[in-house]
């Protein structure tokens, strides 16, 4: 069930109406939990057992941590939680990759072995809820959060359907308190939630889904297309991946808000950041802050050298890449971001030491930065390393390109397709910056209702005909 499908809209309407019609917070939570499990089961009901296992283990670990003050025992409990959660993730997501990589390495060394493969289907959203449950155990261990004794609360925190399959990654420290207090309809900012839901819908169904076939066509046979087509396709993919994920996050925030719960903002126009360090404070914020809090900061030691810091950064970014998918492409993609961040930090240091080197003009910084991410995102999109290398060579004039032009949207419309999409994206950004959305939610209510009613069919008419699954579902 994809958020932009009618069946999700219908499902959400039913959940929403019954949620607010039910008396009492406990019954509402039970209803939401049932709906969340039903939502997840619509993909594959067998994987519910994994969510339940994670929830039960972390519930017991949380209670165990509350009942003991002995450091050794607390550490063991934390390790149990980490072991169980990462084992599930490891078996379902990474086992085959590591086994195949080991086999390749042995083959390279002249040893051939038969390796067992599990060929398991990757459960949707596994990485997302694993990180959520881990954050709960770690925060309880660090005594930042009191464990919950309410199993329903913890289960709903793990399985809350608006963000279950593709984030934002919610921290228990932010979400559990919301579950403890009663939700009131009068406190819901309905208009803001509806607007953010529609913005997300437009990003996903209009922009990302229109870009998808063009990008797919290019990456299906990259050596057949011209160099310009390659750059267009890579920029299209930048547009697609951002609109796809930011769109999902916005719809999740809107849907959760309509049910009375706040989710954290996940995107702040990252392509305009102008440098890699700032970009990760604006892209998939919930994951980058998670990685920063639970991976990068624990690696840091007081008084450590600059090189040690760079090493930690490289390690963190490589893990970040690996989180996205079990393949060398993603590892390489993460590593390129690590290198870029290290390079940027060195450059900043150089500028501090040589003050006559002023900062780059912001337009130039943004342009260079976008060109770089368009190049590096090849590793993210290409199905394998060979294809990625072919694309990179084409983009950098290292190999003769094909002669097929890549024109999405057909003929003349195609030439303008990318520009139109970027323009729309820019308009969304400008509207946000200038507070137009805030103004829009404050217009008289009849005007808002009529405006929203008029916008809905226009948005439906402009959507792509193919409902593409969210890219981040696979992670």
């Amino acid at each position: 069930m994809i958020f932009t499908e009618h069946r999700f809209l219908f499902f959400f309407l039913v959940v929403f109406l019954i949620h607010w019609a039910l008396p009492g917070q406990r019954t509402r939570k039970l209803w939401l939990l049932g709906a969340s499990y039903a939502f997840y089961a619509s993909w594959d009901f067998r994987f519910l057992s994994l969510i339940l296992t994670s929830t039960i283990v972390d519930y017991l670990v949380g209670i165990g941590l509350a009942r003991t003050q002995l450091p050794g025992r607390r550490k063991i409990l934390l390790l149990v939680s980490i072991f169980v959660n990462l084992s599930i993730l490891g078996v379902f997501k990474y086992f085959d990759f590591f086994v195949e990589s080991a086999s390749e390495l042995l083959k390279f060394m002249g040893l051939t072995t038969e390796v067992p493969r599990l060929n398991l289907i990757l459960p949707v959203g596994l990485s997302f809820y694993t990180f959520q449950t881990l954050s709960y155990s770690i925060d309880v261990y660090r005594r930042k959060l009191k464990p919950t004794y309410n199993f329903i609360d913890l289960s709903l925190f793990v399985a809350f359907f608006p963000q279950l399959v593709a984030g934002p990654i919610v921290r228990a420290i932010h979400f559990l308190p919301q579950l403890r207090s009663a939700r009131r309809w009068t406190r819901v900012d309905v208009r803001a939630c509806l607007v953010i839901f529609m913005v997300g819908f437009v990003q996903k169904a209009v922009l990302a889904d229109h870009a998808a076939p063009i990008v797919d066509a290019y990456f299906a046979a990259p050596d057949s297309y011209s160099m310009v087509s390659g750059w267009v396709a890579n920029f299209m993919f930048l547009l697609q991946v951002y609109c796809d994920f930011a769109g999902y996050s916005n719809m999740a925030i809107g849907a959760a808000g309509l049910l009375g719960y706040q989710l954290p903002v996940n995107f702040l126009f990252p392509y305009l950041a102008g440098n890699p360090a700032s970009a990760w404070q604006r892209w998939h914020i919930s994951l980058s802050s998670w990685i920063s809090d639970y991976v990068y900061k624990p690696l840091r030691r007081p008084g450590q050298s600059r090189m040690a810091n760079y090493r930690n950064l490289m390690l963190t970014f490589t893990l970040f890449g690996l989180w996205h998918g079990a393949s060398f492409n993603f590892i390489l993609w993460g590593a390129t971001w690590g290198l870029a961040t290290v390079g940027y930090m060195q450059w900043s240091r150089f500028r501090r030491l040589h003050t006559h080197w002023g900062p780059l003009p912001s337009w130039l910084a943004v342009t260079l930065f976008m060109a770089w991410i368009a190049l590096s995102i090849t590793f993210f999109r290409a199905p394998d390393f060979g294809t990625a290398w072919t694309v990179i060579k084409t983009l950098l004039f290292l190999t003769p390109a094909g002669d097929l032009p890549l024109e999405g949207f057909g003929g003349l419309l195609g030439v303008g397709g990318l520009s139109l999409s970027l323009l729309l994206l820019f308009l969304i950004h400008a509207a946000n910056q200038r507070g137009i959305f805030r103004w829009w939610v404050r217009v008289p209510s009849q005007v808002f209702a009529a405006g929203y009613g008029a916008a809905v069919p226009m948005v439906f008419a402009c959507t792509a005909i193919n409902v593409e699954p969210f890219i981040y579902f696979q992670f």
Partner: protein
Amino acid sequence: MNRFWLGAVHCLWFVIAWLGVHALIEIVPESTAHVGAKFEYLEKHKNDFEVIFLGSSRVFRGVDPALFDLRMAETGKPISSFNMGIPQMGGMETLHVLRRILGLESGRLRLVVVDPEYVFPYRWGSTLRDTSVHTLDNTLELISMQIALSKGMKFTDRLTSTFRHVNAYLDNVTQRGRISQAIKVAKNSYVELLGPASNGFATIEWSVKLLSRYGDAGNLVKRQRKFRLQHRFIENIALPRVLMVSKQPLPPLMPHEKRYLKELMEAARKSGVQLVFVKLPRAYQAGPRFLEAAQLEELVPNLFNYDDPERFPEFFAFENRWDRSHFNAAGARLMTLQLATDLAPYVRPAP
């Protein structure tokens, strides 16, 4: 005004604005791509054809009506035929389209040659034609067809398939992708599906040339490239595997497959049109075998099975194929000539 009535007024504003804009958007022409493209043409020329070929892209890329007609004329049977093959046409859609064709009550149609795919799963997905086909009447028909045919199958599968029809109907009602449809029309998918001779047939070579102009040929090019790269694998592993599968005992005919075939034949019988089943070569991949099983049970009287590398090695020869599933122009020529030879006794020119 209390909160309830205020809410109701807002909802009313919302609905009025929606319907108003919805009516305006209807001005944008609806796409006639895919089934619509061919069907519209057929509707306009319903009394022009004696023979119609129906099936998936194997039929679309493999049967050349012009050559077929020429061959028939040489045998003293001057007829006209039309290729109604549509990429990814699944079993359910074949039945639906057959009913639509027969519903045209053509005074000239004598023979429909069908190459049915698997009956389930429901394969249309969110395609352009999926949406345009799902008018209220069609949706109700499709759902009842689905329910009737899938008796005895897993409840969840039946439910999911039914919901997909409802979803597609809602896509239709909300005019989902109407602008994309208009763009598709601008991109000439209409021309591609009708083919250069407007008889529903297009060789892949011709399509690649046409679609390259719109940057849409990538998928076809990729398929050919993959096929060439897998040459050795296909000849040494895939083909022997297909041969091995074809020699295994036939699986029993499932109840829904029986019902499906009966529905197809009943629809044709009522319209006085003869139905002939063919199984075009799936080449290197084991296809559905219910037609052979049905022939054994004498449910299907007329079946021509070309999916046999021993009897028809030329259909599996590398130089006659574009990719694993489709003929190239040379293969399509061979296939059509074979069909013309085998179907000659069934073809009757209209008086």
